[in-house]
């Protein structure tokens, strides 16, 4: 029965990874930028939430109402002012620039917030759970994060397939030049894609702070898990991202069940196996439905 429990916890953990990965996937699929600062932006969002909690006394779980829109605007600005400019120099420049952003964010947080690790104070909710069977209990917080991930991915999928902006995003991902001569302002469209990606990264940061702890240097490890989820699931497929996150989560949980220190390693091994046997990912699709 422990195995069932490990798989269940792994699936829920996969929701967190999918939440981390969908912004990375969107930015890569549409703007063709590998955002090496993705994990650090999530950590930054968690710190921002901490500031919001201490100044306004908003409950930790409601900070997304403030943090996600702020991060969306922030993302639009970062895209238009920094990433777009480096993109027009060369695609490789964006790697250097986002790596630089990663270093800058980590050090700014270190200077302003110290190296102490933090987590959100959720009161009794943090350990609250309900029992499905005598040996299988589901925590409320991991379940909430999983549901959030599914809601975000569903919303994103609907937005991309049903709205005019979503159509413009998919068209620009296909062929930026053709999109611009069809009348699409591609820089604005990329800005919107980045805004959405940053809003999801803010949610991922809040999920991180709610379910475990974070410190200024927590970002890069999160970036690796997000990368792995994207690659396992298939680049450019949102549902693939969820599947990838779940597979990674289950691999880690089952690995930890076999050997308590082997969780992360098991995740990496599954990732490497997918990369070797099916490099296009398990689900193959563009941002089309």
């Amino acid at each position, binding site marked *: 029965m422990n195995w069932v429990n490990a798989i269940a916890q792994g699936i829920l953990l996969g929701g967190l990874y999918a939440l981390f990965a969908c912004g990375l996937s969107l930015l890569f699929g549409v703007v063709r930028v590998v955002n090496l600062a993705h994990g650090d932006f999530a950590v930054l969002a968690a710190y921002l939430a901490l500031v919001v909690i201490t100044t306004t006394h908003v409950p930790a779980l409601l900070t997304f109402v403030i943090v996600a829109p702020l991060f969306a605007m922030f993302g639009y600005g970062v895209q238009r002012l920094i990433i777009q400019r480096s993109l027009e120099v060369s695609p490789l420049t964006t790697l250097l620039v986002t790596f630089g952003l990663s270093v800058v964010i980590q050090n700014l947080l270190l200077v302003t917030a110290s190296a102490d690790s933090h987590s959100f104070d959720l009161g009794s909710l943090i350990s609250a759970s309900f029992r499905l069977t005598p040996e299988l209990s589901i925590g409320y917080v991991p379940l909430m994060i999983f549901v959030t991930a599914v809601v975000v991915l569903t919303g994103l999928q609907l937005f991309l397939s049903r709205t005019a902006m979503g159509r413009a995003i*998919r068209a620009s991902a*296909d062929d930026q*030049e053709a999109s*611009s*001569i*069809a*009348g699409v*302002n591609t820089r604005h469209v990329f800005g919107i894609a980045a805004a959405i990606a940053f809003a999801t990264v803010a949610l991922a940061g809040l999920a991180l702070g709610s379910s475990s702890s974070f410190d200024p240097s927590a970002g890069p490890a999160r970036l690796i898990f997000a990368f792995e989820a994207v690659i396992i699931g298939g680049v450019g497929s949102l549902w693939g991202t969820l599947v990838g996150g779940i597979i990674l989560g289950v691999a880690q949980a089952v690995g930890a069940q076999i050997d308590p220190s082997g969780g992360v390693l098991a995740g990496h091994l599954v990732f490497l196996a997918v990369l070797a046997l099916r490099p296009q990912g398990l689900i193959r699709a*563009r941002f*089309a439905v």
Partner: protein
Amino acid sequence: MLDVNELTVRHGYLQALTRVSLRVASGETLAIIGANGAGKSTLLRSIIGLHQPSAGSIRLDGRDITALPPHARVRNGIALVPEGRRLFPSLSVEENLLVGRASGRPGSFSLDAVYQLFSWMSDRRREPTVHLSGGEQQAVAIGRALMANPRVLLLDELSLGLAPTMVRRIYSVLPQLVQKGMAVLLVEQDVTQALRVANRFQCLLEGRTTLEGKPADATSAQIEAAYFGLAGRTGPGSAA
């Protein structure tokens, strides 16, 4: 309506266009002919804003649009059907057409109007464009450009890779557009086809205008000379 004045465009060290001027009025069709590498596509791409000229200006109804990005030119009433069609592979036929509406220019073209122009299209509007034949894809590319309600329509090598009957069928929609007062500027390697539909033509050779005039006024020997650069360089406008 569209007024290109002494346009010079460079690709790195290569000078693709040298002081090319042209003018297309409402209801008129101007054909740009010339061999491979003469600068025809560069000319259209510069007019839509994909290349920045190093000298010269582009005006639309007297308004200088030389510095505008492509999407702003579309909003001002220019649309390009690009070489190779460049449809969006992950979008359906109808979605491809709807992207053409991004500029929000008001006008008579809607999905229904495009479906009326190409009667087969509405039945297949939910299909991805990769399922379509080359000619059908070309029609979707034209439809997408029309959805922007342009006043100046730029057509780049419509005949490329299509069977002659298909080329004729595609070109058969042109009179309806010109009748609405659209100005059409088309680039073709198929000279016969181009001269059949155009009121005027302009021949480019190595980025310069070597001959311009009305199709009826130019002899095939003159056109051949201008096209291949035979019999010395004829000066711009020599047959006009």
